[in-house]
């Protein structure tokens, strides 16, 4: 029984609920949050991982029915490979966050924000995400989905002193609601065609191309809204940074993945048919999101905002993979479609890992230096070496550099894209490589961005007093980051192992796996065939290490002491911390080249020449183009409608009389 995946999933949900329940006591005993709630949270994560891995290993499907829900539609849960994979993703990050939280939460004790709310909603949030992944009928799915949104909203608005935070949270909930309703419509159509709200009924639905496309578009809109695809993304960088950092890690690292899960579940699982038009749509939107995401990220100097924009980028990359998968599957190239699909899944877990890691790192900085603004950081590596190391690993991974995990998934995506020559239509043959080019550009820009982040935050000299005073963070926080960092390296070095695990997902969903990928032994990753492409990740890592060691031994004779001296800087005056390159300065060339894409306001502040300051504000164009018009429309409508309530009773009576006469006219 205890080896049954569903048992573990149930345990995970139970523990999550328990943690949120226990946290109610933290009103009087703040310690409870650290010593009871967080460990429970971590345990919930662990058992979710266990459930997921079991489901991935023994590839059978487990289902169950809960005694909840509507009388004729009880909640049905189903744990197949896909769900298992996402359970594992959710669980891993939650585990790390659970480890990290005790140290981080200490900073909040004694604050005037309520701790029970924080712990309780975190637990419910995890419950919601787990239930979304497990749900096997539309009703439970929607309940869990909205639970996820609502609880995360409460967590976002937890620091509610600043009006900006409140606005962000409101916007977040609104957008989540819009997305959810679109998903609801989607399920409505599927249920109407499939005669039933259980997913099993929807799978049997016979959809014409038109209806299938309608459902696809609704799903794409709804889940894309949640996942933060451009141009629906504008709420994301507002909301994610506002939450406490470990929650931001959960939201950016996991919740977006749950949206990806929803998209895969509906499009690959329920609709069950593919059309190249869809593939093109997903591919284009994905590429645009990736590029815009990273460009906007480059313009940020608030660390957490920057990371949030990178989530947009990475979600874009994931959707590029999915788009390629749809494209190839719809044109009958099953193998390559599977490669793209695996690439998307692989990038999903990768992004979960390194984005979680980076947000936890940002949290560590916030904890140690109370600072989110890059322009005030600097030299943190010497003050918090462990965090510095883990953050560096995160930066390398997200920049898709070997031998870390980010590179593997991008490599796989490229491999899929490079099979475009097999497509029949010349248009598609040329669209796909262009998307690949955008992916390459994105990768390079991401590297630039994280050079900026790491260089400005951790290297050089401190730019402000609190940062200069920063102390290393407590052990639990280091543990939380360490786990994720280790996993980043592991997934980068042993892709074959993980891909053989992942195979269960496409086997369950598309009916065929990717055996040839690992057919040449654990050393060689050969997605299509050994002749086409191969990547010996472990070898690369080992040889890099060897050369490093050899180099050190040869030239460094071990780590030989070096003489320390003043900075030379071409012999100019001794540089101070204010002479360092700032984050905005670093991004300036790129800002100039891609200036059209941003809404830039820059100029000089201050009247006297001596205290003039340079002012720069880069804002998102999506606001003016997509959000504000809708708002204005509603405002105009309301202004018209309120005339009804004129305040004069005779006019009211007139309305009654008029309505009466009109109705009589109609009916008689």
């Amino acid at each position, binding site marked *: 029984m205890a080896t049954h995946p569903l048992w573990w999933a149930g345990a995970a949900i139970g523990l999550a609920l328990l943690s949120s329940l226990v946290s109610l006591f933290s009103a009087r005993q703040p310690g409870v949050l650290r010593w009871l709630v967080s460990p429970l949270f971590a345990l919930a994560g662990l058992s979710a991982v266990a459930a997921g891995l079991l489901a991935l290993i023994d590839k059978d499907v487990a289902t169950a029915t809960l005694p909840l829900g509507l009388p004729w539609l009880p909640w049905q849960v189903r744990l197949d490979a896909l769900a298992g994979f996402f359970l594992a993703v959710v669980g891993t990050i939650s585990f790390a966050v659970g480890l990290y939280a005790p140290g981080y939460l200490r900073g909040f004790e004694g604050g005037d924000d309520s701790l029970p709310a924080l712990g309780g909603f975190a637990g419910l949030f995890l419950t919601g995400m787990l239930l979304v992944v497990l749900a096997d009928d539309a009703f439970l799915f929607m309940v869990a989905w909205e639970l996820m949104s609502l609880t995360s909203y409460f967590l976002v608005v937890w620091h509610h002193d600043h009006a900006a935070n409140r606005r962000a949270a409101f916007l977040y909930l609104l957008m989540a609601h819009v997305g959810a309703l679109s998903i609801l419509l989607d399920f409505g159509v599927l249920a109407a065609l499939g005669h039933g709200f259980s997913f099993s009924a929807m799978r049997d639905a016979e959809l014409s191309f038109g209806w299938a496309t309608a459902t696809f578009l609704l799903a794409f809109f709804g889940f894309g809204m949640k996942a933060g695809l451009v141009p629906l993304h504008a709420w994301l960088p507002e909301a994610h940074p506002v939450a406490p950092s470990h929650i931001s890690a959960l939201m950016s690292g996991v919740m977006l993945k749950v949206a990806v899960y929803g998209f895969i579940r509906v499009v690959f699982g329920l609709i069950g048919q593919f059309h190249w038009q869809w593939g093109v749509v997903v591919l284009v939107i994905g590429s645009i999101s990736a590029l815009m995401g990273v460009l906007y990220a480059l313009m940020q100097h608030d660390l957490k905002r920057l990371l949030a924009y990178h989530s947009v980028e990475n979600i874009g990359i994931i959707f590029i993979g999915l788009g390629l998968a749809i494209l190839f599957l719809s044109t009958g190239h099953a193998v390559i479609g599977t490669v793209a699909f695996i690439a998307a899944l692989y990038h999903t877990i990768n992004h979960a890992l390194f984005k979680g890691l980076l947000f936890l790192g940002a949290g560590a900085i916030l904890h140690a230096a109370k600072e989110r603004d890059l322009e005030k950081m*600097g*030299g943190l*590596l010497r003050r918090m*070496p462990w965090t510095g190391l883990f953050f560096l690993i995160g930066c*390398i991974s997200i920049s*898709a*550099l*070997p031998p870390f995990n980010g*590179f593997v998934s991008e*490599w796989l995506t*490229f491999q899929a894209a*490079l099979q*475009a*020559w097999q497509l029949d239509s*010349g248009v598609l043959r*040329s669209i796909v*490589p262009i998307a*690949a*080019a955008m992916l*390459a*550009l994105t*990768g*390079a*820009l991401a*590297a*630039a961005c994280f*050079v*900026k982040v*790491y*260089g400005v935050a951790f*290297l*050089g000299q401190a730019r402000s007093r609190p940062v200069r005073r920063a102390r290393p963070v407590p052990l639990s926080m280091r543990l939380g980051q360490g786990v994720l960092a280790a996993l980043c390296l592991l997934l980068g070095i042993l892709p074959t192992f993980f891909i053989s695990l992942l195979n269960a997902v496409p086997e369950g969903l598309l009916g065929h796996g990717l055996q040839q990928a690992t057919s040449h032994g654990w050393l*060689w990753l050969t997605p299509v065939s050994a*002749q086409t*492409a*191969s*990547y*010996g990740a472990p*070898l*690369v890592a080992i*040889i*890099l290490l060897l*050369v*490093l060691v050899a*180099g050190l031994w040869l*030239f460094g004779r071990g780590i030989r002491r*070096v*003489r320390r*001296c*003043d*900075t*030379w*800087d071409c012999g100019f005056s001794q540089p101070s911390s204010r002479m*360092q*390159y700032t984050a905005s300065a*670093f991004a300036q*060339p*790129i800002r*100039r*080249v891609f200036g059209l894409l941003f809404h830039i306001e820059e100029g000089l502040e201050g009247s006297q020449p001596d205290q003039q300051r340079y002012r720069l504000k880069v804002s998102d164009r999506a606001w003016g183009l997509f959000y504000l018009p809708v708002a204005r429309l509603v405002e105009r409508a309301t202004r018209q409608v309120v005339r009804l309530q004129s305040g004069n009773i005779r006019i009211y009576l007139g309305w009654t009389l008029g309505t009466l006469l009109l109705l009589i006219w109609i009916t008689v």
Partner: protein
Amino acid sequence: MNAIDWEITLLQALLYAAAAPLLAGWIHKLKARLQNRRGASIWQPYRDLYKLFSKETRMAHTASIVFRAAPYIVFAATWLAAAAIPLLSTRLASAAMADVIAIAGLLALARFFLALAGMDVGTAFGGMGASREMFVSALAEPAMLVAVFTLTMTAHSTNLASVIDFNLQASSLLRPSYMFALAGLILVAVAETGRIPVDNPTTHLELTMIHEAMILEYSGRHLALMEWAAQLKLLLYGVLLCNVFFPWGIAVDTAPGALAGSLLAIVLKLLLLGVALAVSETVLAKMRLFRAPAFLNLALLLALLGLLSHVILEVGL
């Protein structure tokens, strides 16, 4: 993969490391000649490296561990990347280990740490150099990958060894896509290796520096490794251009004779390439930084043209 392949691989790797300074010296010599100077001997780079290695190494107080580790990482990554490009023979284990995308990745890794090292000391010039380096590379990378895609889609493989094999067999027929790809790749190579007109390796004016600005603070063995890595990169791109587009003479097996022949061939190709580079660097002037995008967009454009002409003109023939 049998033992002999690994031996070849090792041999090539060592050869890369050994030959890198020579190419740099050859280009220096040619440029001096073209400027009517006698110039230093082509062995000068070796002497410089030796001198730097034997000198004492100093570091700024503000420098961190990243600053110390960077030279080793940069050198290792560049070397590994180079080792994966067939120099003498296409029977190359490392080519299977790291295909062309992985090579790009390794170079990016090296660049990443180079830029970090530039920012580590916390000087204005270091940051400036890092910013510009990442800027240029961000624009160059897609161009390079697209150019490479043209090759790989033609050869149906991202494994450089098999690409070269393919080209050897099919080198007879003339491909429009290759012209564009070659042109694009040359521009990218110029930008990536920091040559005129994008960057000037011999400049002494800090404000125009890119690569030099990042390694301003280095000294001793660290500086030596950085210089060596730069020379390796130059050689790497040279070999890439020569062997992929003009694969003639490269050995497809491990027979000593064939290897000797291919060595001769590659040396000749590189000498010619050196001449071309030296001439171009003499006649061209360095551009302003903000004209670099135009330059690299041209590279990307050419690469894309290559790709399109491939998928439209050549597939299905």
